[in-house]
């Protein structure tokens, strides 16, 4: 029950109802199921848990998922910054369409993206068939996973950087120029550092999404154990083997990672608020 010290008194009615419903719904849909996952994981004895976590196949999947997700997020930082810059700073025909297209990976169901990317990069696909004669394979290799992860990660960078770039005071760039700094110097020493907190946040979000991504990856991945098998797929496989404990342990790792990233993003935000007065 909300007490007088718990909340500041207000004339607006409906706090108990709204707050109570919010907490109850949140608990039933999100908190209890997630807590259940951890309970399930920790009912395992330590030896069993150790055996699951040091499984060669799991370690390979961990390495693959984390490695490629980092790589894709880093790639997206570079191109995402360019894209955000071009879309906010320059006007050219088609800008609005390209800007709207940024959200495509958010809006397009992952399974649709998955089969479309596969159709493009498969050895008999639209781009794949031109690469196949040179022995370059994208689909069913790690390169395919990378492309899928770039696809779903791009909007995170662009959409976190864009608002900051829009609000960036032109006067600051002009000030840099009056002090004698070249344009390149202004961009690297004045503009980019200002975008750093947003870029780090976008990077973390894109990375988190990439590690957990399933639909757009599994079609193009090839799913060879130890080679192109991603973490979420391993959960599905464990589940299909009715190895619930194994699935839960992997899920617990991923979930913990989500929490860590969430906390990290909040810390970056709070730090940048405090120091620079903006997010």
């Amino acid at each position, binding site marked *: 029950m*909300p007490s007088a010290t*718990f*909340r*500041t008194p*207000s*004339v*607006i*009615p*409906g*706090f108990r109802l*709204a707050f109570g*419903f*919010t*907490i109850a719904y*949140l608990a039933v*849909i*999100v908190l209890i*199921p997630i807590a259940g*996952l951890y309970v399930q994981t920790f009912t395992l004895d330590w030896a069993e848990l150790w055996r699951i976590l040091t499984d060669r196949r799991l370690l390979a999947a961990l390495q693959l998922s984390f490695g490629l997700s980092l790589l894709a997020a880093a790639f997206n930082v570079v*191109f995402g910054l*360019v*894209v955000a*810059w*071009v*879309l906010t700073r*320059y006007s050219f025909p088609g800008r609005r369409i*390209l*800007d709207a*297209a940024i959200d*495509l990976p*958010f*809006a*397009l*169901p*992952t*399974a*649709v*993206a*998955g*089969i*479309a990317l596969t159709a493009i990069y498969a050895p008999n696909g*639209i781009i794949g068939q031109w690469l196949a004669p040179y022995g370059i394979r994208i689909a069913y290799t790690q390169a395919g996973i990378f492309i899928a992860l770039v*696809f779903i990660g791009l909007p995170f960078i662009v959409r976190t950087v864009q608002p900051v770039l829009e609000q960036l005071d*032109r006067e600051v*760039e*002009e000030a840099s*120029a009056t002090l004698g700094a070249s344009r390149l110097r202004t961009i690297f020493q004045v503009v980019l550092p200002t975008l750093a907190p947003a870029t780090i946040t976008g990077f973390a979000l894109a990375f988190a*999404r990439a590690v*957990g991504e*399933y*639909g757009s990856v599994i079609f193009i991945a090839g799913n060879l154990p130890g080679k192109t098998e991603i*973490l*979420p797929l391993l*959960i599905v496989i464990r589940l299909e083997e009715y190895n*619930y404990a194994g699935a839960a342990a992997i*899920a617990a790792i*991923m979930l913990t990672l*989500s929490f860590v*990233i*969430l906390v990290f993003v909040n810390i970056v935000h709070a730090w940048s608020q405090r120091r620079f007065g903006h997010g």
Partner: protein
Amino acid sequence: MVDTAPAVAPSLAAVPPSRRVAPTTEPRLVRGVLIAITATFLSVFLLFPLGVVFVEAFRNGTAGFLSALADPQAQSAIRLTLLVAAIAVPCNIVFGVAAAWAVAKFEFRGKTLLVSLIDLPFSVSPVVAGLVYVLLLGSNTLIGGWLQESFGLRVIFAVPGIVLATIFVTFPFVARELIPLMEQQGNGDEEAALSLGASGLQTFWRTTLPNVKWALLYGVLLCNARAMGEFGAVAVLSGKLRGQTVTMPLHIELAYNEYASVSAFSVAALLAGLALVTLVVKTFLEWKYADHIAGTGRH
């Protein structure tokens, strides 16, 4: 007044000063190159895959597309997807409004934590989202077993599970569009309405709701798009029983794995069409009602 009359210097540069580049932009060539990179990158990575969906769907012409959709299994998948969205979206609307009301209109301790928890499903892998329900409500679990024995209600590998998983993954959409906007609007309108004698409910219907209607529509739009397109979470707990627990995204997977490419891409084209409509309406809302949508561009 000019005491040290400067000699009129010969024109130093061929470029007239008015055509010089402003100091806060880049030379024409650099701009051109950057625009070209952006256009190419976005075309190859984003627009091209979208185009491929439609090309593949119409590989056998319109007739092939239509017959793929007329297939009973496709029909059943479409119906199930609509049903799931029709349950999940309203649930999350009610939750979103309640949560936004509690968070934006009142000050209480632990508010930041609550907001973070509301956002949590966004950072959870869809596969994990599906799994947590399997672990909690599967027929061999405590609650799942009880539900099945007492009510004959099967949750996992059945429609209720699909609905639950969909609610989970679309959980924050409405709330996070409403919260920042309602916080920004403050309590002034509500306090005015209450002081004029309106009841709490009247205040909500007549002042709060009209103030946030575009943000609400925006959130519902995104929520619906995700609800209809969710794959990972649903794949884990649907069991993929044809004609019973197969949604549109799952139908795409099944058809694709059976090399029924046109069938897969036809349903995919339908979902891609939905995504396009969503984007168009979203862009329109952002353009027309930018001031009424606080959380623009954050997902």
